[in-house]
């Protein structure tokens, strides 16, 4: 995306031009929807949340630093909104423990990924959507939002050690599903 023209659209929006914001939404709706879909795992809910994220962004545009790129700010705002939604449907700790214990294999080993690229793409998609919410969240923030451990800890309200642990478990589950022959 062209950051200079994004900046112009932001400034026009601040001047009261709603259609300029519509243009920004048009540019970023796919990436914002993808963030929501990866985190929520449901396309209809992701579309609702993506729309809500844009409405929130419009209201908070006054505090946005125009010298920074709009896209990452917008995607992070969408991620925050989805994480808040996920928090409300959090499973019990017992369920999470069961999910983790269900993953077999030696955690010290991570075999070669199975299949060709198309198959890997498909397995990544289905694997991510199968992850428990809390593990999908850390994968999203680290691999797609490019957050540091500290930023993730702050965003999720947990310690850095817990971030490392969740990332490790999430990746181990993903590795298992990506290399599984089933």
């Amino acid at each position, binding site marked *: 995306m062209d950051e200079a023209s994004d900046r112009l659209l932001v400034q026009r929006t601040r001047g009261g031009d709603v259609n300029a914001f519509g243009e920004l939404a048009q540019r970023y709706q*796919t990436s914002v929807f993808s963030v929501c879909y990866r985190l929520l795992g449901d396309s209809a809910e992701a579309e609702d949340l993506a729309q809500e994220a*844009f409405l929130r962004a419009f209201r908070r545009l006054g505090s946005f630093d125009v010298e920074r790129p709009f896209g990452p700010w917008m995607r992070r705002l969408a991620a925050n909104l989805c994480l808040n939604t996920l928090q409300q449907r959090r499973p019990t700790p017992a369920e999470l423990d069961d999910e983790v214990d269900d993953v077999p294999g030696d955690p010290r080993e991570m075999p070669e990924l199975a299949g060709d*690229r198309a198959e890997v793409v498909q397995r990544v998609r289905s694997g991510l959507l199968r992850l428990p919410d809390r593990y999908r969240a850390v994968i999203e923030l680290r*691999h797609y939002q490019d957050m540091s451990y500290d930023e993730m800890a702050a965003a999720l309200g*947990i310690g850095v050690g817990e971030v490392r642990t969740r990332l490790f478990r999430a990746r181990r589950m993903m590795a298992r599903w990506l290399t599984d022959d089933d």
Partner: protein
Amino acid sequence: MTETKHLSDLEIEALLDEALEAGAAREARAHLAACGACSRRTAARARLFAALETWEESPPSYDLTPGIVRRLSHRRMPLGLSLATAVQAGLALLIAVLAWPLVAPVFSSLQIPTIPGLELGFSATLAAQAEGLLLASEAALQPLLDSADAWLRMAPQWMTLSPAIVAGALLVAVLGNSILLAGDAAGRRSVRLRRL
């Protein structure tokens, strides 16, 4: 980190995430250069990281833009704010109605001085204006005193009820403003994520 002590999984992941301190990262890389087992484990994890990057974005099933623009166009002002504004405007109107008996005589008796003819000089015009204003002030003062006197002679229930209504209206107005300010402050507060 020595060559005989292998890297832990968390260390390997932290290295790939660029989350190790500079010194620890240097040691880890030195170990990897000499340890085939850790190199293979690191390469396997790097492949997993690369696989995660293959996620292909797909657009939503419909264009979200028209709905967003429509909702923004219909809600230029937050709903709570517009309702509060209407309530405050109503209260202001109520106060004006209650205060009207006091100020009506002033308006009705106020005599605006007429502008003299242009044949007079500037200083003479100014003097005439000042005299006219003085006369108007005197004329205005008398009805005001008459009005205050009339208020004092009004029915006792009006005298007791009116201040109570005005005080109540002012209280509601102050509370309304407080709620507005609190709502605005909440709106500006950044989203704090709850523990997930």
